């Protein structure tokens, strides 16, 4: 590191092009919708900037408040499920023979490299009424019926007159299922990183001193892995909260999340100021979560920065 004064020409050469790009094609667009969020819609395309908070106040209407609450709830539930699933997975990887660790870890990350849209589409094929799950269930239903017929109970229609496929798609459960599917690696990676740093002899000592596995987990492992848990919770929650594609493709009319409302304001409802205000609320929530992470990380020992 040297001070920029030692070589001002080189400094400016490296500073100017990326800064201009960032300003022109990132900060200006963001600033534009920030200004729009204080505006009012006039006619089809015109937006008058009135510097009113009306759009933000409108976000507090019960209809939108409910959608925001729903987004928070679905993202929170996704994060919680990811944490519960990820911990045993991380334990399995972390205590696996060294030869297996990279392979298992790669297996967790690999789906993450495939396109989000394609993974969501793959879930549609699994969950739809004529999808693989319902097909398997129907197969079991047929089998069960044949057995009943064979033992002479076929006429009683114990399993119903015909197979009723489960409605697995286009509801809230499908959205949470899809969000967990997409975000699980976000939870596994930071948890694994902090489990690897954790001194395993601590766990051994706790068990030797007579603590149960459960107590060891809650009083030794969890506090020591706290930085990883916090990181995992937040970097799972942030993208889950802003998800657009998963609720759009897997959700029904009542499982729309905040990003879907934003999209509608910009595309079909054509109310840009309101959509802009919602975007900024989502962005403030993101910054809040990030700030919380660094605040919590500062409070715990042995934290590394940046990861």
């Amino acid at each position, binding site marked *: 590191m040297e001070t*920029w004064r030692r070589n001002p020409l080189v400094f400016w050469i490296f500073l100017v092009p990326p800064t201009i790009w960032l300003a022109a094609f990132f900060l200006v667009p*963001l600033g534009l919708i920030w200004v729009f969020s204080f505006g009012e819609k006039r006619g089809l395309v015109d937006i008058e900037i009135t510097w009113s908070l009306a759009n933000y106040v409108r976000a507090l209407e019960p209809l939108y408040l409910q959608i925001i609450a729903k987004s928070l709830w679905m993202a929170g539930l996704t994060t919680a499920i990811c944490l519960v699933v990820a911990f045993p997975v991380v334990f399995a990887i972390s205590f696996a023979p060294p030869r297996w660790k990279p392979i298992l870890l790669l297996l967790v990350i690999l789906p993450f490299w495939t396109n989000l849209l394609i993974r969501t589409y793959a879930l549609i094929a699994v969950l739809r009424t004529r999808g693989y799950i319902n097909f398997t269930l129907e197969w079991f239903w047929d089998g069960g019926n044949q057995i009943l017929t064979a033992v002479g109970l076929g006429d009683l229609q114990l399993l119903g007159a015909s197979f009723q496929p489960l409605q697995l798609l286009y509801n809230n459960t499908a959205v949470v299922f899809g969000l967990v599917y997409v975000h699980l690696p976000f939870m596994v990676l930071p948890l694994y990183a902090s489990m690897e740093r954790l001194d395993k002899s601590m766990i051994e000592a706790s068990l030797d001193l007579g603590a149960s596995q459960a107590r060891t987990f809650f009083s030794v492992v969890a506090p020591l892995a706290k930085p990883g848990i916090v990181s995992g919770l937040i970097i799972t929650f942030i993208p889950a909260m802003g998800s657009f594609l998963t609720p759009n493709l897997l959700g029904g009319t009542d499982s729309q999340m905040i990003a879907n409302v934003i999209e509608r304001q910009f595309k079909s409802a054509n109310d840009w100021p309101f959509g802009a205000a919602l975007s900024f609320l989502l962005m403030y929530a993101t910054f809040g979560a990030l700030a919380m992470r660094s605040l919590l990380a500062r409070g715990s020992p042995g934290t590394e920065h940046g990861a």
Partner: protein
Amino acid sequence: MSTTSAGLESRRRTKAGIGPLDYSRRLWIRLVLIGTFLFLYAPIVTLIAFSFNDSRRNIVWRGFTMKYYEKALNNDGLIEAFVNSLTIAFVSTIVSVILGAMVAILLWRFRFPGQAPYEGTVMLPIVIPEICMGVAMLAFFARIGWPAGLPWPLNLGSIIIAHISFSFPFVAVVVRARLAGFNRELEEAARDLGASQWQTFRDVMIPYMRPGLVAGGLLAFTLSLDDFVITFFTSGPDTVTFPVKVYSMVRFSVTPEVNAASTVLIIVTVLLTAIALWLQNRTQPKDM
């Protein structure tokens, strides 16, 4: 001593011979692990498998066929979208690598007032929700009156600009990680031996940075090829990219052609990411 430890060992072992720390050998943990992998892989594996299935209904296996790949290849809209995606990814990668490398060198080499806020601002495109960036780009290009109906490939300009804006910070992160292992004495030696600043940069810095540049470039390429949300807001009817095209097909129905098209994209991105990671790990300094 040995008896004590042997005694401890036997006390700590359960009937099945699993030690208290052998978590990876516990049945329930193994079941969770296997269940998780099934959950993660079954949908993708079935998607790929059924792209070769000789049945439109796409549920029961009726024999191997390549006809859906043939159909996808003969689908002009799909091919056009694929060519658009590759063009966008190619141009956006080149610009992203240049801008990203500049940011990386700037932050690695210089100390300047406002460095921390500057760094935070540059990394902003990585953290803000995609939907926010998408609508910002939509509003921006509409407001400045970005010309519509330009001849190909100029009509892809707005998508390319949006892709560069979200890719170059990722390139900066990758290149900076590579630079962290650079020994600045090499640079000083080159200068002492009479090389100019430019020569030092070209003959010492660039060769050292190359693996980072390639890895960052492949990352930018994959990010661009994969992006749906931001492109969805910047693309018009005549500038459809591959993911946007697949999206409209998916909305319409679940067909084997979509499976075939998806399989191609999965293979391309997994290969590119694997190469990028391999390059990055191979060149990462040992102490990092």
